[in-house]
């Protein structure tokens, strides 16, 4: 699945702008308008592969966002501890040039209890973190690899907080 042209341009523009210091270190060339000049290491197939990785990352983030959104709406007591995750997913999506577009969740139902719901969110976030780590390892562009790895680390930080979240007096 390749990104549509406007979105691809947006992704390149955003990642280029935000990752410029890293990319400069990586030896990439940048034009005055902020667009990226393909280096010998960034062939057309490599750029296409990176587009696919960005699309996969956006899909994984949006899937995680959907679940967090549904759980926070159903379990009011979890809305505050989950607010950070919602913001995280929004920020990361914006960085990749995408947009959060919540759709009715058709997959797993949200459990009734707070603890099972939180456990489901935790599993989903772990899955997201693994996905981002894997994509970072495969990315052709060094700056995209760094961006995705940083996102993986951001999710990992929130997993620490999720683990410590108290539900109904439980640690």
């Amino acid at each position: 699945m390749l990104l549509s042209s406007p979105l691809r341009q947006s992704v390149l523009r955003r990642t280029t702008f935000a990752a410029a210091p890293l990319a400069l270190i990586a030896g990439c060339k940048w034009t005055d308008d902020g667009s990226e000049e393909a280096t010998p290491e960034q062939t057309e197939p490599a750029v296409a592969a990176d587009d696919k990785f960005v699309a996969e990352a956006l899909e994984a983030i949006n899937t995680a966002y959907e679940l967090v959104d549904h759980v926070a709406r159903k379990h009011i007591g979890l809305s505050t501890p989950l607010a950070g995750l919602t913001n995280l997913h929004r920020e990361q999506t914006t960085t990749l040039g995408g947009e959060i577009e919540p759709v009715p969740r058709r997959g797993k139902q949200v459990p009734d209890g707070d603890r099972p719901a939180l456990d489901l969110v935790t599993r989903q976030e772990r899955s997201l973190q693994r996905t981002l780590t894997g994509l970072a390892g495969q990315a052709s562009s060094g700056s995209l690899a760094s961006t995705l790895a940083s996102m993986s680390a951001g999710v990992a930080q929130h997993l620490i907080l999720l683990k410590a979240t108290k539900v109904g007096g439980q640690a």
Partner: protein
Amino acid sequence: MTAAMQTALAGEHAAVWIYGVLGGQTSQSAEPTLYDEVSTAYALHRSRRDQLMRWIRDDAGTPVPADVAYELPNEVRNPSQVRTAARQVENRCTSTYAVLISNTESTRRDWAIRALVDAATREVRLGAKPVAMPGY
């Protein structure tokens, strides 16, 4: 690639030195959780320093030497200050590893990703607020 590894190595030299000081300022009996965190971090940073040195030598480079001493990020007279200093160390490491990731591939990149995630999570365990993209 070697320049980024040298930068990461310089960061690890500093981390090892600073964690050595932090360990000496942390009571195992009074602050067991912090002591464990500092001790674990010290061992991990030593291990990473050694790995970076091996890779630089493998690439026919000369590993950048450690300085005699490093400036502490802040005073470390109590557990709160120790945590603050440790967070600073980890925060700097996330930045250097983000750069290293962008300059490596395959095994070395995977290793750098693990180091970045580890530093970022330790930051939070030491009391930092999470951010969307550590090291970015």
